[in-house]
C-alpha cells in the first residue's frame, strides 16, 4: 500500500449544549466521536450513515471548517489540526469541499464567474486571469462559459451543483470532500452529476471523500465505504465486499432496508426492519453505540465498546460478534433462538 493522502485518527468533534440564563454548558453533542480512516490517492471513499450520525461534521472537521475537539488529521503525512493559519491557507487549496444544498451554497448576489473565481482571488490570482480560469471551468463541468455573468437563481439545481463543483476545482485540489453532492437533485439529473464527478476524477486525478446517505449512490461511486453510526465507524470495507457480505449487523440492516427497483427481488428479499430510533448523540449508549437497536446485543455490548478490527483483508468492523461471510442477520438471530 502506498502512503495515504489523508489519514484521520481518532477524530472527535463535540458541540457544547448550552442552557439557562448564563448559557452554561450542560452537555455535549458527540457528533464525531473517535473516527479513524485513511484515503489513498485517487481513491473514492464513501461515507454512509443515517441523518445525524456525524457525516457532515466529520467532513468539515477534516477541513477545520469546524475545529475538532481532539484527534489527528494528516494530509500527505502533515498534521492539519496543528497547522498555522498561513499553512492552513495553503492546505485549503489542496483540499476542497462541495456542499449538499445547491441553493444555499452559492451566494445569490454574486455572478457565477465571481463565485467560481473567488478561491483563486483569495489566493492572489489577478482578476482577469481568475475570470478566464472560471470560464474554462464552466466548460469543464458542462456549462456554457458565456453564462458566467449570470446569477445562481437563473440555473436549475443540477446546474448549480455543477457550479459548486467548478468552484471546488478552481484551486486544482487533490482531495475533494463531497458532502451529499447529489442528494438534492432529481434522479435523472443526479446521474448526470455522478457521471461528471467520475469524468473529473479521471481528468484531474482527484481523490474523493464522498458523503451520502443514499447507499445506492455510494455503492456506485466508491471504491471503499465507511459505514458510520452515531459518530463512530461501524464498518469499513471495499464496496463490493460490503454489499456482498456486510459484517456489522448495522451495515447488514442498512443494506437490506434500501429499496431496489425490482418487484420480484423486493418481494423475495429478506428485510431486516430495525426496531427503535437513533439514540441522541448527546447521550450515546454505553459500550456499542448500536446496541439499543441491535438484534444481537448481549450484556457485553453494553459494557465494552467494540474496537474497529480487521475481519478480512480490507474489511474492518466494530462489533463483538461480526457476521461471517455468507451469514445473514436472520440466520444468526435464528441460531441464537431469539
Amino acid at each position, binding site marked *: 500500500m502506498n502512503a495515504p493522502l489523508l489519514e484521520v485518527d481518532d477524530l472527535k468533534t463535540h458541540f457544547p449544549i448550552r442552557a439557562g440564563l448564563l448559557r452554561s454548558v450542560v452537555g455535549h453533542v458527540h457528533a464525531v466521536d473517535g473516527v479513524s480512516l485513511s484515503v489513498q490517492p485517487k481513491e473514492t471513499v464513501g461515507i454512509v450513515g443515517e441523518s445525524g450520525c456525524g457525516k457532515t461534521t466529520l467532513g468539515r472537521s477534516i477541513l477545520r471548517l469546524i475545529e475538532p475537539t481532539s484527534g489527528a488529521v494528516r494530509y500527505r503525512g502533515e498534521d492539519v489540526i496543528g497547522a498555522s493559519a498561513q499553512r492552513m491557507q495553503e492546505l485549503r487549496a489542496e483540499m476542497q469541499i462541495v*456542499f449538499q444544498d445547491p441553493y444555499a451554497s452559492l*451566494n445569490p*448576489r454574486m*455572478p457565477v464567474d465571481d463565485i467560481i473565481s*473567488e478561491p483563486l482571488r483569495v*489566493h492572489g490570482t489577478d482578476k482577469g486571469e481568475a475570470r478566464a480560469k472560471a470560464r474554462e471551468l464552466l466548460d469543464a463541468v458542462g*456549462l456554457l462559459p*458565456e*453564462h458566467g455573468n449570470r446569477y445562481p437563481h*437563473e440555473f436549475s439545481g443540477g446546474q448549480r451543483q455543477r457550479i459548486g463543483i467548478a468552484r471546488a476545482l478552481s484551486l486544482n485540489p487533490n482531495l475533494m470532500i463531497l458532502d451529499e453532492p447529489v442528494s438534492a437533485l432529481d434522479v435523472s439529473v443526479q446521474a448526470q452529476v455522478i457521471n461528471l464527478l467520475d469524468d473529473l476524477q479521471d481528468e484531474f486525478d482527484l481523490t474523493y471523500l464522498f458523503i451520502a446517505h443514499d447507499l445506492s449512490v455510494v455503492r456506485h461511486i466508491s471504491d471503499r465505504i465507511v459505514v458510520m453510526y452515531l459518530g463512530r465507524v461501524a464498518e469499513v470495507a471495499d464496496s463490493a465486499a460490503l454489499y456482498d457480505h456486510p459484517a456489522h449487523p448495522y451495515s447488514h440492516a442498512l443494506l437490506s432496508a434500501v429499496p431496489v427497483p425490482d418487484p420480484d427481488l423486493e418481494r423475495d428479499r429478506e428485510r431486516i426492519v430495525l426496531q427503535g430510533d437513533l439514540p441522541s448523540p448527546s447521550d450515546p449508549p454505553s459500550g456499542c453505540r448500536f446496541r439499543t437497536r441491535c438484534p444481537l446485543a448481549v450484556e457485553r455490548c453494553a459494557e465494552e465498546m467494540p474496537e474497529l478490527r480487521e475481519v478480512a483483508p480490507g474489511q474492518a468492523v466494530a462489533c463483538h460478534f461480526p457476521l461471517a461471510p455468507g451469514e445473514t442477520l436472520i440466520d444468526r438471530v435464528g441460531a441464537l433462538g431469539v
Partner: protein
Amino acid sequence: MTDVLENPTSGSPVPSVGEAEGLAEKSESVGRQAWERFRRHKLAIVGTVVLALLAVAFWVGPFFVSYGYEEVNIIDRAQGPSWDHPFGTDDLGRDLLARALRGGQFSLRIAIFTAVLATSIGLVMGAVSGYFAGVVDGGINFIVNVLLVLPALVLLALLGREFGARPNTMAVIIALISWIRAARLVRGQVLSLKEMEYVQAARAAGAGPFRIIRTHLVPNLVGILLVEVTLLAGTAIILESTLSFLSLGVQPPDTTLGTLIAEGKSTLDVRPSRVLIPGGLVTAIILSINFIGDAMRDAVDPKSGIE
C-alpha cells in the same frame, strides 16, 4: 448539441446543459440589469425627481427670494400668504418661504447624513459582533446596553451643548445614538448568514473574515440596510425637531422644518398653512426617500427578475 441528443448512451461528451435549459445566450451587464429593475418602480422615479427638485429649491432658491431667512420685519408680522410673502410671515415678520428653504436645507442634510452614518455604524458593529462570537460580541453588546439605558435625549442635549448645535454635529450626534437598531438587525442576519454554505465555501477556499464580511455578508444585507436608511431618515427629522423644540437643536435664527412645524402649532386654528407647508415638505422628503429605498432594494437583488 444535437449529436449528443441522438447518441445519449455514448456518455463521453458532456453536453452543455445550459442550452437545454433555454438560457438566453446574451446577458446584459450587471449595472444595466440593476438600472432596469430600478426603473420598473415608477414611484421611485417620481421620488428621485421630487428629491432633486427639493434639493435645488433649498440650495438655489434662497438667491431668488427677496428676503433673508433671518430678516425681521415687525410691520409685516404674522401675515398669511401673499404675493410678497408666498408662505406668509412668522411672529417676527420673517419671510416663511425663505425660512422654509433654509429649514429644508438643514432637515434634508440631517436626514440623509444621519441615516447613512447611523446605518454604516450599525452595519460595522452588527457585522463584526455577529461574525465574531465571544469577546468582540460581548464588548459591542455592552456598548449597546449602555446606550439603551442612557436616555437618548439627555445624551443628545449634553453632546449638543458640548459640540455646538451645527447641522453636521447634530447629524453625527443623532447617528451616534440611533445606530443600535441597525446593529441589532444586522447582527441577527449575520448570525444566520454566516452558517450558509456559501460562507463555508469561502472559508474552505481560505478567505479571511473581512473578505467574507465584505463580499458575502454585506451584499446580502443591503436589503435590510436600505429599509433601515429610509426609516432612520424619518426618525432623524423628527428627533431633530424635538431637540430644536426644546431649544437644544439648531439655534435661532437658524431653523429646520421640524422647528417651523413646532412654531406653527400654536396658530394651527387660524393659520394652518404654517404647519401644512413645512409638514408637506417633510412628508415629501420622507416619502421620496422611502420610494427610492424600495426600488434600490429591488435593484440590488438579482433575483427580482425583469419581466
